[in-house]
């Protein structure tokens, strides 16, 4: 049998040592009538060679960004990843290690998490970061729960420009625990600040704003900071693209209290949307309300530096029903990929990636804006992603371009913009690929 070491002879010796004649005697506690009498109805087992052929055949039915000209984004991005990242994360020392509960034999995992936390603090300008969450959406949901816990208030305000998948997950996480979700209206692709101001009151626990927002537009966080913090207790929660922080304001500059975001763009492949990971950072004053795992430096018996999980009294294995969250993992390997990636790129590389993505996105937007029938939807500053008004429904346009091996972008129909197309540009896009998209869009419009 694959992956099982023991032979019939060894099993027999072990059963003898246990003092039973047959394996079935060990199942005495399972009443006969509860046991399966027929084998499970599954496919015949495949050898390694056969399963390889089968999986290659399945994978070949997918079309991907290495073989197509892709402009897909909306939180999951195709950024360049140096080869060294995969060489680290495939090492069994990291890949098959358990959660670092036995600190003395998990220093490798604990130290990279400590370094990850440091890097997230450096990116966001915040004081404390946890070891990571499931994805950006659940991190945002946990941030709202944390805001409510900390302020003892139930009303939370979400920008209407938030990623719809964030909204979905937030709703699932908050609807049964009494949080009141209020959506701030949208005006010209960004949060309507006058309307937002009216919504914020003394009952507000927190305001969640994503920047760049779902449409790619930058929100006026300085102004939002003023509005939110005009209420003494309300917390400002920013959801950000980590790559953007290399050119855009750090959330600390606009006094965010909690910062979350989807971290996949940092050194992780798209993998059809999973694994992703969420990053989560805040000011020191909120540390006791924080969800998730946190690693801290300390000393061992001999006074030598080492790392251990810390502030654990917040967590489920100690606090059970009163824990700050039920999470008991941290998408660790995805965070390792992000850590290795950030170290390889360094301050210069991350800046270059962010700048190239921005400049290329603006090049493409300018070209598309000049096409007959197309229009840049919002007159707002943007980073690497922007919304285009298309002459035909975006769905039709996307389908037509697939035939030309182009993934034109994300259809915004569910936000009410049937003719809205969200186009993302990373540093991987070449001028030729962008010009190809422009040409294909022009052809669509010409019939």
């Amino acid at each position, binding site marked *: 049998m694959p992956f099982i*070491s023991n032979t019939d002879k060894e099993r027999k010796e072990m059963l003898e040592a246990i003092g039973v004649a047959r394996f079935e005697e060990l199942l005495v506690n399972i009443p006969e009538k509860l046991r399966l009498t027929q084998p499970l109805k599954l496919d015949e087992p495949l050898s390694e060679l056969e399963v390889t052929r089968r999986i290659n055949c399945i994978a070949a*039915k*997918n079309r991907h960004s290495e073989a197509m000209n892709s402009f897909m984004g909306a939180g999951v991005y195709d950024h360049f990843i140096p080869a060294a990242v995969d060489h680290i994360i495939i090492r*069994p020392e990291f890949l098959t290690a358990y959660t670092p509960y036995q600190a003395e034999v998990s220093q490798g995992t604990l130290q990279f998490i400590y370094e990850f936390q440091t890097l997230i603090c450096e990116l966001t300008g915040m004081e404390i970061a946890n070891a990571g969450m499931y994805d950006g*959406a659940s991190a945002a949901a946990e941030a709202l729960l944390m805001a409510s816990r900390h302020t003892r208030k139930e009303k939370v305000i979400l920008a209407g420009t938030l990623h719809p998948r964030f909204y979905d997950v937030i709703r699932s996480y908050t609807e049964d625990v009494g949080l009141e979700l209020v959506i701030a209206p949208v005006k010209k692709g960004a949060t309507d600040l006058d309307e937002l101001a009216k919504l914020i009151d003394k009952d507000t626990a927190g305001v969640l704003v994503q920047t760049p927002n779902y449409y790619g537009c930058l929100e006026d966080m300085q102004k939002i900071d003023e509005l939110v913090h005009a209420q003494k207790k309300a917390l400002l929660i920013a959801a950000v693209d980590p790559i953007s922080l290399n050119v855009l304001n750090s959330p600390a500059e606009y006094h965010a209290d909690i910062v979350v975001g989807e971290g996949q763009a940092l050194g992780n492949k798209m993998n059809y949307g999973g694994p992703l990971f969420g990053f989560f950072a805040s000011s020191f004053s909120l540390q006791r309300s924080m969800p998730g795992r946190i690693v801290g430096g300390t000393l061992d018996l001999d006074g030598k530096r080492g790392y251990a999980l810390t502030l654990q009294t917040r967590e489920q294995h100690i606090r059970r029903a009163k824990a700050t969250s039920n999470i008991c993992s941290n998408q660790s390997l995805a965070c390792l990929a992000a850590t290795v990636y950030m170290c390889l790129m360094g301050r210069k590389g991350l800046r270059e990636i962010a700048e190239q993505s921005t400049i290329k996105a603006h090049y493409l937007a300018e070209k598309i804006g000049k096409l007959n029938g197309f229009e840049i939807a919002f007159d707002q500053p943007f980073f690497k992603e922007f919304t285009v008004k298309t002459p035909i429904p975006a769905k039709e346009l996307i389908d037509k371009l697939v035939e030309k091996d182009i993934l034109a972008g994300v259809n915004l129909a569910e936000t009410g913009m049937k003719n809205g197309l969200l186009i993302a540009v990373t540093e991987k896009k070449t001028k030729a690929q962008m010009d190809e998209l422009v040409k294909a869009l022009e052809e669509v419009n010409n019939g």
Partner: protein
Amino acid sequence: MAKTIFEKHSQGRFGYTLPKLDVQGDINSCIPEKFQRKGELPLPEVSELDVMRHFIELSHLNHFIEKGFYPLGSCTMKYNPKINETLVRNAGFMDVHPMQPQCTVQGALELLYELQNDLAEISGMADVTLQPVAGAQGEFTGLKVIHAYHKFNGNHHKRKIILPDSAHGTNPASCTLAGFEVIELKSNEKGKVDIEELKSLISDDVAGFMLTNPNTLGLFESQVEKIAELIHSVDGLMYMDGANLNALLGIVQPGKIGFDVMHFNLHKTFSTPHGGGGPGSGPVGVREDLVKFLPVPMVRKNDDGTFYLDCSHSDTSIGKVHSHYGNFSQNVRAWIYIKMLGAEGLREVSRNAIINANYIMHKLNKYFHVQYDEHCMHEFVADGSWQKKLYDDPDKQIKTLDIAKRLLDKGFHAPTVYFPLIIHEAMMIEPTETESKETLDMFINAMIEIASEAKENPELLKDAPFTTPVRRLDDVRAVKVLDVKFQDYMKIKEED
């Protein structure tokens, strides 16, 4: 200890190359100044070789499956086949975006569809969602389904979930997040659900019962049908925590013995790597009438053989728990594992896991106290109570933690300790099916040595470990002198 990457910084170094920018433009013409970051990012500057040496140095500080045995109870630290790692690195999986048109992701949908069906068959459930990305998120999803079921039926008063005192800490925490009140049930003298006690807790406001089966003592709850009858009598739902599913493959289908909802841990039972704490995958299976509450979307097959993402039940669905479709690449690994083992192989998994556990228990029960000394399933709980009694002096007294730390010196990972909470000084031991008899014998011998060291040379236990990269760490200091990033460390060093 290894220096941090921040101490290896040297200004001007970098570990990447990029093509030159091939369009005109500069950042200031794209982004208004007020939106631009002030000052440079304080990230480290290191070369590719610096980075490789650094992380390889860190890797050497870890215990991991290929290095040695991991007898962690309820964690199922089985060998993770290498073919999984090779096959998930196909561009047809890695470079696929989750919002691509469905006609361009037919392979991904086919695979997910088959995995939904295979897990449904293995569990005896009607259908399975692959969206939850961890066991705890699976619990949350399953509990939300229970909540949705009662709300759908107008039973808003059903707000209590009963769970045994032997339950994993995530169970009550997930109940809270799903808006339930937790009622803890005391286990009986056999370590199982106390039926009389349960009867006294049954009332109309009970929404459901959460049970790990086999339970966290490694014992099959033989009264599970009776429990289900009691819970179902007030229209409560039975939730199975699938942490211990490795004991039941091809032997029992939870969906056929009274459970209505369950979660799987693909990182335990189905060989996806733990990764030092994730990514995992925690699919949830349910009985027929609960399928309409599962997260959107589900993967379905058209009559023409193509596949699609189905949101047709969005009115009744609990919504979403993940941005997209869960941890896709972990689900690919689990698919490969199931296809390679088939029905017969999966049954062999459980058979070997159970034999291995009973073998260790039988060999160790003369040296370590085992409270519930009956045949176990895939794991059992021993404890350090005999060793604790050896010395009255509290400074000398041996605790389970000391036994665990001494095991590290002998090249083994420790068992799960101090859990379940109902056994004092608990050591929960789960060998899994992939370990050979020689490995088990080496572990048994190490444990027997420790039992005799406890009598003859207790300092070896009290001061252990000696051979690990660091020795016991000061957890209290880690909280009192909070050092959660490199800048904190520098500050503390200055103040010292």
